[in-house]
Each structure stands twice: as C-alpha cells, then as structure tokens.
C-alpha cells in the first residue's frame, strides 16, 4: 500500500513507518480537540453575536483563563516527563515528591519571618522573582541529595519524598496558625490560586520564563532520550550524567515554581499528562512524548473546566475533579503493574 509512496524514512530506520503515521494522526487529533475545547470555552453561553465587539469583550475575559490552563499544563507536563526520565521511573512526579509543598513552605516562611508588611513593601515583581528563585535553589539542593542514589531504591526515595512533602505541608500550616490574621490574609491571597481565579499579575514574567525553560528542555530532549538509559550507559555515551541530572532538576524546579505560583498545588495533573502521553505515543522519544503530554494535559484540564464552570457551575471544584481523575489513574496504574 505504501510501497510507491515517496518516503523520507530509509528502509532500515530506527522507527517503523507505521509509527510515524500513527503519531501524526494522534497529534492532529489532539490539536483538533484542544482547538475545539478552546473555542467552546471562548464561545459557550456568550449571548452576543459571534465575533461582534461585545462578543469579543466577553471572550477576552476568558482568554486569561485559557492562557493559565495552557501554562499550567505546559509546566506540569514538561516538568513531569523530564523528572521521570532523570529519576528512571514512570510513577514519581515532582508534585508527588513535594516540589509544591516546598513552594508553599518558602512563601509561608517569608511572610512569617519578615512579616507581610516587608513583603508588601518590597516591590511585587522583585518579591515574586526572589521567592521563585529561593524555591528553585532549595528544590535543587534537596532533590539532588534525595535522588543522588545514596538512598538506594525507588521505594525509599518515594517514602522519603512523600514524608518530606507532608512534613513541609504541616510546617506551612503550623506557621500559618501563628500568623496574625491580616498577614495570613496577605499570604492566602498569594497562595491559594485556582484555575478560575489564578494569580495573573505576573503572567508577563511567567510566560517568558516558561517559554525559555520549555525551549531548554526541548533542546536537550535528545539528551533526555540518552539519560533515560541510565547513569552507566549515558556516561559511556559521553554525557556527564550527574551534571545533566542537576541541569534537568533545575529546569523542572523552575517550571514547578511557575505552575504553583499561578494556581497552587496540582498533585496528579503532571502524572496524568505523562502517563497518558506515554501510553498514547508508545515511544521513548522525548520529542514526541513532550508535546503530546502537554496537549493531553491541556485537553483534560480545559474540558474539566468547561464542564464544571459552564455546564455544572461548580468552578471551584476544577482542581478537585482533575485530581480525582489523576489520582484514580495513579492507583489504576499501580494496581495494574502490581509494583512501583
């Protein structure tokens, strides 16, 4: 059937031809789904004549939500896929290992130690940058130690990571109890974003940072393919494994800081995106898995938002529902594999 079709793929190539075709179909379908759900989000229940001035006025208010959904899913998908590659597993995600609890703890500690006034006194942009940088630095130190292999196997790492995550969460709530109510209010406004009510003040910083970090991950994606082979083989192939892992963990921390600063913790969104992307693409190539993971995350989160916001009018439960789906998938994967 394909014998006379011109093909760019040599006869004996690394990837079977059917794979190329399947991947193109899959991407096209996901892009179509993403465009459809975006159009629905813009146009749903918009009573004015389509594309008139008034229609656009309503729609433009919704574009920031769409931008937030796109950004959060981008961060979570890229961060999770890269993180799973350097940790050689398909179960652990930055969120499960407590990257976001760390962000909350850093924010809380800053308000607790310096007080809300000094934080408010600092120029908001500078504060945002400093806090994100602090979180990235802590995350790199903490997780490079945790993932250095000194703790041995995956189970120990998972256990320590979850205990650390829970511990940091508890430490944050403890500090929050000690805050006086007005300071707590300042903190709360900053911490508890949600999809419908995201912190969009810093989008102009978040967007370029995400774009740059994402581009960096994209550029090293062939290196990620090699890192997935493990420490010994990637060293053999000429990569300085430890340095590369640190680089990837830094990029992951930046993406997680951006995501958390927008909408707060999303424990299972990254897991959902990465797991579905791997089972849909059926490949090890990051150039394929990364975009598919983003698209899958976007379609899932946007659909959940569309249904809950406009159909059931339950907007605050968006993250709960996505977490419910993601958590159920997490359990299903563990039960099916019967191991971590």
């Amino acid at each position, binding site marked *: 059937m394909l014998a006379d079709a011109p093909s760019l793929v040599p006869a004996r*190539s*690394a990837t079977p031809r059917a794979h190329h075709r399947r991947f193109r179909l899959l991407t096209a379908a996901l892009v179509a789904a993403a465009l459809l759900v975006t159009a629905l989000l813009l146009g749903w229940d918009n009573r004015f004549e389509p594309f008139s001035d008034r229609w656009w006025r309503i729609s433009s208010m919704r574009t920031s939500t769409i931008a937030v959904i796109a950004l959060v899913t981008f961060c979570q998908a890229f961060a999770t896929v890269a993180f799973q590659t350097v940790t050689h597993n398909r179960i652990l995600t930055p969120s499960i290992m407590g990257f976001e609890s760390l962000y909350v703890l850093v924010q809380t500690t800053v308000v607790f130690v310096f007080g809300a006034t000094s934080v408010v006194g600092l120029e908001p942009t500078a504060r945002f940058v400093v806090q994100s940088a602090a979180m990235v630095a802590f995350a790199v130190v903490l997780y490079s130690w945790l993932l250095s292999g000194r703790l041995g196997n995956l189970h120990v790492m998972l256990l320590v990571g979850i205990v650390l995550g829970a511990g940091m969460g508890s430490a944050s709530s403890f500090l929050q109890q000690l805050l006086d109510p007005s300071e707590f209010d300042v903190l709360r406004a900053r911490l508890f974003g949600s999809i419908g009510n995201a912190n969009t003040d810093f989008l102009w910083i978040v967007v370029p940072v995400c774009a740059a970090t994402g581009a960096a991950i994209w550029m090293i994606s062939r290196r990620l393919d090699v890192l*997935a082979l*493990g420490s010994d*083989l990637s060293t*053999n192939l000429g990569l*300085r494994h430890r340095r590369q892992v640190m680089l990837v963990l830094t990029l992951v921390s930046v993406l997680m800081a951006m995501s958390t600063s927008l909408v707060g913790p999303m424990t299972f969104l990254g897991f959902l995106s990465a797991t579905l992307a791997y089972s849909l693409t*059926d490949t090890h190539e990051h150039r394929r898995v990364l975009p598919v993971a983003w698209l899958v995350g976007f379609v899932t989160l946007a659909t959940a938002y569309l249904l809950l916001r406009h159909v059931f009018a339950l907007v605050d439960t968006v993250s709960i529902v996505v977490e419910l789906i993601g958590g159920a998938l997490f359990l299903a994967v563990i039960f099916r594999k019967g191991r971590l």
Partner: protein
Amino acid sequence: MIRLDGVVKRYGRTRIGPVDLKLPAGGIVALVGPNGAGKSTVLTMIGRLLTPDEGTITVDGIDVHRARSTEVARTVSILRQENHFVTRLTVRQLVGFGRYPYSAGRLTAHDEEKISEAIDLLDLGDLEQRFLDHLSGGQRQRAYVAMVLAQDTDYLLLDEPLNNLDAEHSVQMMATLRRAADALGRTVVIVLHDINFAAAYSDYIVAMDAGTVAVHGPPDMIIRDDVLTRVFRTPVTVVDSPSGRFAVYHRPPDAGPRSAAPPPKEKP
C-alpha cells in the same frame, strides 16, 4: 594502549590497588580472578564509570577521567552486566544510541550503516524492530553489545558479557568479539568468570587477586597448574584438550570418591 598508574579505589576498609598496568592495543584482553578480586572495579574505572581515589588512567594517551566526555566516548566504550532498560525501545533504536557521541541523536546515513553493521555482526537482523522488553535476557545482552560496537571505539570494555548466555550463545558471543578484534581491529577488554573461555579466546590475560594484579601475560604464561592454583586458591589441573589448554578444577582429587554420595532411593 591502556595504561594505569598507581590506581587505587577504596571501599570502606577494603582497598583495590594500587594497580600499575599496561595493556597492549589489539586483540582480546581477559581480566580473571576470584570473586571480589577487583576485576570489575578496574574495568569500570578504565571505562570512567567509577572515579579512582588515586592514580591516573589513560587510553590511547587520553586521560579518561579528565578529557572531554565526548572525546572519551569515541575512544572507549564500556558495558556493564546490569542495565536499566527503557520500555518501548526497539533493538535498532537502542543500537542507534551507540552513535550518540558522533551525531548527538540525529542519525545520518553513515550512522544507519554502522548501526546495520553492528546488528548484523550480532545476528540481530530478525529482531531489530522488536521491543527490548519482549526479548530474552540473552538477546537483550546481545543488543547492548551491538550498541557499544556501533559506538565504533578502538577500545571496548565488557563486564562479564557471558552472563545470562547459554553455551551456544556464549560461544557465539566470544566468536563475535574475536571478529571485532581481528577484522575490525578493536581492543576488547573483558571480565570473564570462566577461566576456560579466557584460555580459549584471549590474547592476553590479567589475573587479579585481593585488589592487585597477581600476574599478567599471554595465555601460555597464565594457564598453568601452579599459577591458576595460586590465583584461584583452589587446586587446578591444566590438561591438553582438542581445543587447546583446559583448566580442570571442578572436582579436586581430595573431594572423595564419586560413589560416596548415597544412591537415589527408588520410590515404592
């Protein structure tokens, strides 16, 4: 030439080394010795997967622990026994990774040629589109060896390549390595558990014991009653077999008569 100068690695109170050694280029070099003698440690240090605490290691004049990693990756390749394997990776894709030091993941026509060559050399042609997790341990082992062969390095280090292989595939593997050494001019350094494979295939043998090199030289010098008995601390008799010298040690004379074991009881 592989050259080790005063190489030491410490594991708590145990110490491997100091090892001073010059291994000639060309042919198959076998590292043999009892368990825990430090064979694998020395091999992984040459392959720069493990950093020595003291000393320097050069391969063809390149200091493997200080030179640029890509440069080293084009000179020496190493394969260990246990490899974390990625699911959804086909044999051909795995072998393709061997070209990473040259093409950084963008395979050229020349790379594809090298990949096909390595696959054919290890007789994996029929399996090249199969996924690694659908292969037997021995087939997977051969796929990894094909990967390091595709890496096209003058020096090839293999840690117990005969693990997981049955008699047929062990012989095939050694014949392949022999071909790589003779036809392709590679220097193959292997850790071997079975002294008789070393006797049958290698050009040079390094016998290690208790962290140091006990004796090294061509097989004629090593495959001898007195040397092997000392190194392996068990009585070894070398006999002439149709395929060359053969070390017999499986049942020493003082193990008692064969009939000492009670005959199996017949079931009523």
